[in-house]
């Protein structure tokens, strides 16, 4: 169970009041096996509200049952999805959006502009990009049933990127009555307008989740590409099985009891590739970046020298080798914006050519005035990748005379303790390791870890005024100018070192050979377009 490898469900937990939900998922007969896909996903779908939690799996659930205004295509370009047409006023301050015809929720009611406005408002409270955008929103409202408009106080070219982004939380359009739920509380009904319908009657929370094809869904005419294009449900039913044990899931896939396994342990990929009934494919080409956060509030990492020391200490290849084995599936990454993203660059990465350089790291620690105090590393026992990275980190720190102390607990314990701002010896911490999709690092606005606004920001609480100004500059820049600003951000970032990367890995998914048409993209696996042949 807990022991699962890299099943990094970002936080999260269950949801849904079955009792309250109307009987919309009424599939009177069980669809044939040939049209049913059984999938083992990254972890249990703990929350059914993709806005309330940032857990990726909840976002997958959202993509099945909800539709989006825009969606990024395979090239990460925003494309209209529910929107028929849109435009801006001459002063670039007002944006107007018109919905396409034939959009309807699973309960039979039509999708209106008012639903969209309410959904945008709730999402904007919880989403980093939404919050950033709403600081500049003067007015948002429905013009008629199909049209709504947003007015800004200054031009905001990022709006389409925010609406279309696939990183959590995604702007899913819910019914107005659901979207008016307090953003800090979960919705209680799960009715969308997407290509699949959540079958509340047959779902058993924590065990399996059932989705049936929405026969009334009207897809766009363009071919499917990422979250854009026609969402054609070729399966009658999708079932997510919550198999907690990797060994069990692999055996089940080999036996044909399941069709799709999202995160098989990379060490066992060879074994799966050798099986002619199984097909292995990397769906998220941007990979997953493992990163190390340091606590800026206490010594030694309140000193920039100690943070710089970490850049020189970490041997990304060793971390990846220990965690994944096969070099085909990992690489080291030097860019602050991740590798393979449009913002990737090599500004101020001289340290990378040198690292690992233990002498230099030791020297920098010394210069920081490190006094031999214990460094507390939070170590989750139930995430093998982080667990491995933490142990190597402790080993390297000890090698250069730093008194590293591993504080082991399960992931629940780590996320609780990392929020503690007390000194490390009083229940606080110095270092924790986590991961995020490589694509997320490419955007300095959406990833909360890219903030450097001190104690208001994300765990580790880095603080740098220049960084904050540059992020703002990036947001206002026209798309063609963003890379130049990104280089400025990176030059500054690798001087003050908000965090350190520990490597990038490419997670392959494994599926039965007859499963075709899986759309691979960062941070989301949509289930339309998939078929069993």
């Amino acid at each position: 169970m807990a022991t699962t490898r890299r099943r990094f469900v970002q936080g999260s937990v269950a949801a849904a009041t079955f009792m309250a939900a109307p009987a919309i998922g009424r599939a009177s007969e069980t669809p044939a096996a040939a049209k049913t896909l059984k999938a083992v996903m990254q972890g249990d779908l703990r929350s059914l509200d993709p806005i309330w939690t940032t857990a990726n799996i909840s976002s997958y659930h959202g993509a099945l049952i909800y539709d989006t205004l825009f969606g990024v295509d395979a090239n990460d370009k925003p494309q209209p999805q529910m929107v028929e047409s849109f435009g801006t006023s001459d002063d670039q301050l007002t944006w107007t959006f018109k919905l396409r015809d034939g959009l309807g929720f699973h309960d039979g009611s039509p999708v209106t502009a008012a639903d969209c406005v309410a959904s945008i408002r709730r999402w904007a409270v919880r989403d980093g990009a939404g919050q950033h955008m709403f600081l500049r929103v003067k007015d948002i409202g429905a013009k008629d049933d199909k049209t709504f408009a947003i007015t800004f106080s200054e031009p905001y070219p990022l709006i389409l990127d925010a609406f279309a982004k696939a990183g959590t939380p995604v702007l899913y359009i819910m019914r107005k009555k659901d979207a008016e739920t307090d953003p800090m509380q979960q919705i209680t009904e799960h009715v969308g307008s997407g290509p699949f319908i959540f079958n509340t009657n047959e779902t058993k929370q924590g065990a399996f989740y059932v989705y049936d094809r929405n026969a009334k869904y009207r897809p766009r005419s363009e071919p499917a590409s990422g979250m854009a294009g026609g969402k054609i449900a070729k399966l009658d039913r999708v079932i997510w099985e919550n198999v907690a044990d990797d060994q069990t899931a692999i055996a089940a896939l080999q036996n044909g009891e399941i069709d799709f396994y999202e995160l098989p342990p990379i060490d066992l990929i060879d074994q799966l590739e050798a099986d002619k009934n199984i097909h292995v494919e990397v769906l998220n080409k941007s990979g997953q970046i493992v990163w190390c956060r340091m606590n800026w509030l206490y010594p030694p990492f309140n000193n920039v020298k100690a943070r710089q020391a970490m850049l020189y200490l970490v041997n990304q290849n060793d971390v990846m080798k220990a965690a994944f084995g096969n070099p085909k599936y990992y690489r080291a990454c030097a860019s602050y914006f991740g590798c393979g993203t449009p913002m990737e660059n090599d500004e101020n990465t001289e340290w990378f050519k040198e690292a690992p350089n233990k002498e230099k790291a030791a020297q920098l620690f010394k210069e920081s005035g490190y006094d031999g105090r214990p460094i507390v590393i939070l170590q989750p026992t139930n995430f093998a990748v982080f667990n491995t990275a933490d142990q190597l980190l402790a080993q390297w720190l000890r090698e250069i005379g730093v008194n590293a102390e591993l504080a082991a607990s399960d992931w629940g314990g780590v996320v609780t303790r990392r929020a503690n701002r007390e000194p490390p010896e009083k229940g606080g911490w110095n270092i924790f390791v986590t991961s995020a999709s490589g694509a997320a690092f490419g955007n300095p606005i959406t990833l909360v870890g890219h903030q450097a606004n001190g104690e208001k920001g994300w765990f580790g609480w880095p603080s740098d005024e220049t960084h904050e100004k540059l992020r703002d500059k990036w947001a206002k820049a026209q798309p063609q100018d963003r890379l130049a600003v990104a280089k400025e951000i990176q030059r500054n970032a690798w001087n003050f070192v908000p965090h350190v990367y520990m490597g990038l890995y490419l997670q392959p998914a494994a599926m039965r050979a007859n499963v075709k048409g899986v759309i691979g993209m960062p941070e989301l696996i949509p289930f339309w377009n998939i078929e069993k042949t």
Partner: protein
Amino acid sequence: MSEASAFSARELAATASVGPSRRHFVRRHPSLVAGAAILAIFVALALAAPYLPGDPLTMTPARRLSPPGSGFLLGTDALGRDVLARTIHGARVSLLVGFSVAAFSVLVGLAIGLFAGSIRKADAPLMRLMDALMAIPAILLAIALVSLTRASVTTVVIAITIPEVPRVVRLVRSVVLGVREQPFVEAAIAGGARLPKIILRHILPSTIPPLIVQATYICASAILVEASLSFLGAGSPPEIPSWGNMIASSRLYLARAPWTIFAPGIALALVVLAVNLVGDGLRDRLDPRLARRM
């Protein structure tokens, strides 16, 4: 596998002993001798571990999952650590967990049991509390204790000890109640002896034999429970080499690198087997009546 090894150990023990009386002892208590011999080997290994060559902690990713023989007698695990060194050092942790759980639960259980059995007023409330602790599934209590607090060997020992205590208390109390009705105890009470003296002189000695037997079973089960907790991600800290940890973190490699599981797995099974054999043997020797009852 484990049975075969147990037998060879038994033969070993039998041939090694000299003199008619010793040979007689071995023949009368084969399981006790075999168990004690295996256990003695592991205890010796555990004590000698820091002085033996081999580093259980250093990770070298470049040589991960090397098969046995390639510079490492029992190969390396997924982080490139020496499986043999870890298995030997694992004996320290697993035996420490087993012995301390046995010792603590017996001591605490003995104290509470004597108290409940001798002082009538304390009996009912204490026994209800013990019933309550016994009613909570041990493994769940242990998982909750370890998950909710910080993972350390101490937490694991406490978490496994707590559910064992009520069982010891019950055993001690039943012995105490039985002994109290014996004529010699009644005579002592009538003669005006003080309670502590009665407990010390008359009651305590009768509890020792069944407790020793019980302690061996607790020890064996504690070693297994530690392994199960590791499997569920609520065991000793991953850095510390315990057999449970090693098996749990290597279970993906059952087919690809079986040595990572077999070494700690066989060691675990052997030690648990040995402790059980010692328990059976002690039971036969110390308390023939108990032997028939159990």
